């Protein structure tokens, strides 16, 4: 049985508490983050004859960590075997073996692994493996003030009604079989959307 993350786009306000909690727990500085929050925005404005305005603008946030993919391309491209999947599906780095080549960073469509300038090795979300062992949810899940994050058996997560596995700006799920289930915001756009844009590229 493999596990995955759940993200509720109807609850997320883009507050970044998940990111801050992750950074505090994993002791990451401003140059490295395991969880990134994309603000995806679009829409337009109309001016009426009398000068009043109506908006058709929209905006939603997507909080994204490693998707612990079924077809993890980071594992496939890793030349040393450092990047590997645990039996329960979590993708982790074996720091005894990683040489910091960065292939994983290039290959991952979710930009999850990152070769740290400090450690010179690939660093990424491991689902808070140590917390899971202790019977605790990943720190981001336990931190979310509005309970927009979840973690559990991927099959159960996927069975929830009205859920999808990709929204813009994430790629379609057929590439890597991400273990991520999303309850989309009402304004969420499909992966192939060309009308919106990532409004905070410098923050992710």
């Amino acid at each position, binding site marked *: 049985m493999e*596990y995955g993350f759940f993200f509720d786009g109807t609850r997320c*306000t883009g507050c970044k508490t998940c990111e801050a909690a992750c950074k505090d727990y994993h002791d990451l500085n401003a140059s490295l983050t395991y969880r990134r929050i994309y603000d995806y925005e679009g829409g337009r404005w109309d001016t009426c004859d009398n000068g009043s305005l109506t*908006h058709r*603008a929209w*905006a939603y946030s997507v909080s994204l960590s490693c998707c612990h993919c079924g077809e993890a391309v980071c594992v496939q491209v890793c030349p040393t075997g450092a990047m590997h999947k645990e039996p329960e599906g979590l993708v*982790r780095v074996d720091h005894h073996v990683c040489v910091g080549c960065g292939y994983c960073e290039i290959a991952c469509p979710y930009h999850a692994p990152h070769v740290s300038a400090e450690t010179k090795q690939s660093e990424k979300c491991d689902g808070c493996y140590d917390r899971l062992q202790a019977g605790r*949810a990943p720190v981001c899940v336990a931190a979310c003030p509005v309970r927009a994050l979840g973690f*559990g058996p991927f099959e159960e997560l996927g069975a929830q009604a009205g859920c999808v596995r990709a929204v813009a700006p994430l790629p379609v799920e057929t590439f890597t079989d991400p273990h991520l289930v999303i309850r989309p915001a009402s304004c969420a756009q499909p992966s192939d959307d060309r009308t919106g844009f990532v409004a905070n590229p410098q923050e992710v």
Partner: protein
Amino acid sequence: MTETIEKTSGVSRRTFLKGSSLAALAGVGGSALYGCSTPEEEQPLSETGAAPTVAHPAEQDEVFWGTCKSDGCGQTICPLRYHVKDGAITLVEADDRGDGEFGGVQARCCLRGRSMRQWHQHPDRLKWPLKRTGPRGSGQYERISWDEAVQTIAEKLKYTIDTYGNEAIHSGVTAIRNDQALERLLNCLGGYLGGYGSDSRGQLETIMPYMMGSGGPNGSSMTNTLHSDLVIQFGNNPATTRMGGASANYDLARAREKGVEIITIDYWMNDSCVGHPEEWQPIRSGTDAALASAMAYVLISEGAIDEAWVNKYCIGYDESTMPESARGKHLSYKDYIMGTGYDMIPKTPEWAAPITLISAERITELAHKLANAKAAYISQGWGPQRHGNGESTCRAIAMLPIITGNIGRVGCNTGMRDGVSVGLVNPFTTIPGGENPVKTMISCISVVDAVDHGHAMTATRDGVTGADKLSTDIKFLWLDGTNLLNQRGDLRRSHEIMKDENKCEFIVAQDMFMTFTASYADIILPGITRNECASVIALATAGEFVGQLHIDSIVQPPEECRNMYDVCTDIARILGVEEAYTEGRTWAEWQQFSWEMYQPYAAQMPGYETMPTWEEISKDHIWTSEIEVTSKMMDFFADPEAAPLDTESGKIEVYCERLANIAATWELDDPTDVISPIPIYTPGFESYEACTEDYPLYLSGWHPRQRFHSTFHNLENLRQATRQQLLINPADAEPRGIKNGDMVSVTNERGEVHVEARVTPRIIPGQVGMPEGAWAQIDFDGDGIDRGGNINVLCNSHPSPLSKHNCSNSAICQVTKL
């Protein structure tokens, strides 16, 4: 065993663990895992091929209850769990008691709470007393001893009192500790010039008591929205200002999922509507009163108002309840709205459309939604009142719940910002400040004015209270954990006044960091946090529980940082008032004193029946108690005769005679300033109408998620997570050649700021917005340009007509690409 297993959204952790292959691996390791095992019992999982995994080092630390900043987010003060090892904080976690499932109550903190380790252990913390060696504002200082620091301060205090009198001493509001240690010292020395109001809601909190009594500024808890069918919030954004804890943001999320319709009226699609753009009603900044008045017009003209009911509770809704002095003059609220009042303009949706930029049809639709609601929760943030004539705006919004009867019952609100259910929270957090022998006060915003020309400030022009005028300028300023020069409009003006050592002769700052404000001080004292000393902290939440936190020095302050109380004790000793100041108590002993002094009063408050004794709270460190959801002003609306308000008439004064008298006698600075006895729309100082060809855009600010005002701006992780940016609509950015992420210059007559642009449809065209609180980085002797992104460089320092508080959301500007 299962009690300790956390749950996740939609999927219980127990389910996760039962089927987990992690469990199988654990079996190999020979140790029980999950839920009941301690980290020490766990075995490394070397069989996986991964490096041996041990629990996070912080999992094995000592864990203490602590707090975020002491005055929290106005409403939310979160209990935090500090992991400590070898005297250092290793990790900060949130409240993990209660029910973590959606709908349950668990006070999960926000990203700022999660950054407390970085804040406490920041390398830039001030570590010892400093004495200024360069010009004020230069940031040039040398280390001095505590002896020299307290001796110098004591001498300057004595000199100031002897030369100018106690009224020449002022202490800026404190933002870090909020404990009255300084106020107590100054009171023991004969007092000081006080400050009333607040930067947060000064206009609203000054004028609302005229209309609705002393409780007027306060709103019902957002928890009420769980019993509503409609929420209309003007300029309110709990998703960034009260986002952590069992807070307004969480309550709003729960209300939404119960099917409550939410409408957020704001000039930008604030974070409370992210993912729900249909909830956002854009409005031109500063015109909320026009929208509220037009909605009232629709409701009145369609006969949707129960006027007999309104007149039972109100003075001056219509002619029938006008006070004697104003009878027969068409001065009522209804006359104003319907166009039979003094300006003879009906406040129709068509009238409001070009002002608010909201179509007449939409305004009518909003009014109909309100008319059809069974329990509408109407609120306003503190942005709408932070404009010219905001004193009228906040009352105009408050009229909507009153005339529609959506007030005084559960599910409803007073039109004010969502508040807390139980008000008695703060006395525990302070030591008694004592009584100030100096009765004269100024608006807390007028500090720089009183430094500059205090001697010329009067009651009827400058809002001096307790005397007709000030007797002196401020000559001794104690900036007690406040970055007020960074946080008030027109930094250049403040700089010119504060740098002059002939004006304010001595400035002391107590802070944790070298802030923009501290750099003007003659002596800087290194401060501590509430987690670095004995503290009692009231846990403020929205509406579901009350609580108290007892902290016993979780960590020691760095280097020579000292508790302000101990510093003040030293000064009191030098000046011969030590006994009066301390009454023989240490700081820790004062905590117990305050607790036991307020316990009898507290015991009468909802939830406080189970309040622990000092011995109990000292042992348990945290106490919370569930309360029932209540709405503000329920007693008054149940029986206005038996429970009158403490206004002059005992009723809601829609027409306020006292304000009419003030309007007739006060001198106002500017023709746009208006004190009106009824709530009206009037554009006010530097409104959108003031835009020119040179400065065609309108600029307002907001309280961002990455800081608490200016506090935490120096935490790099937070600055990176949410960057300091200017929001600008594509319609305004494209003609200027500005692309998302470009650096831009924002200018007006007051200054120039360089900041990163965020080009986004989330802001109404014609308006730009930038969050307040970024630390100014200006060389006033050089090019004078702020490269820190501080909006206050561009904001005005004009005092509002009645309360003399800030109108800083009213600014015109131009934006150009750099």
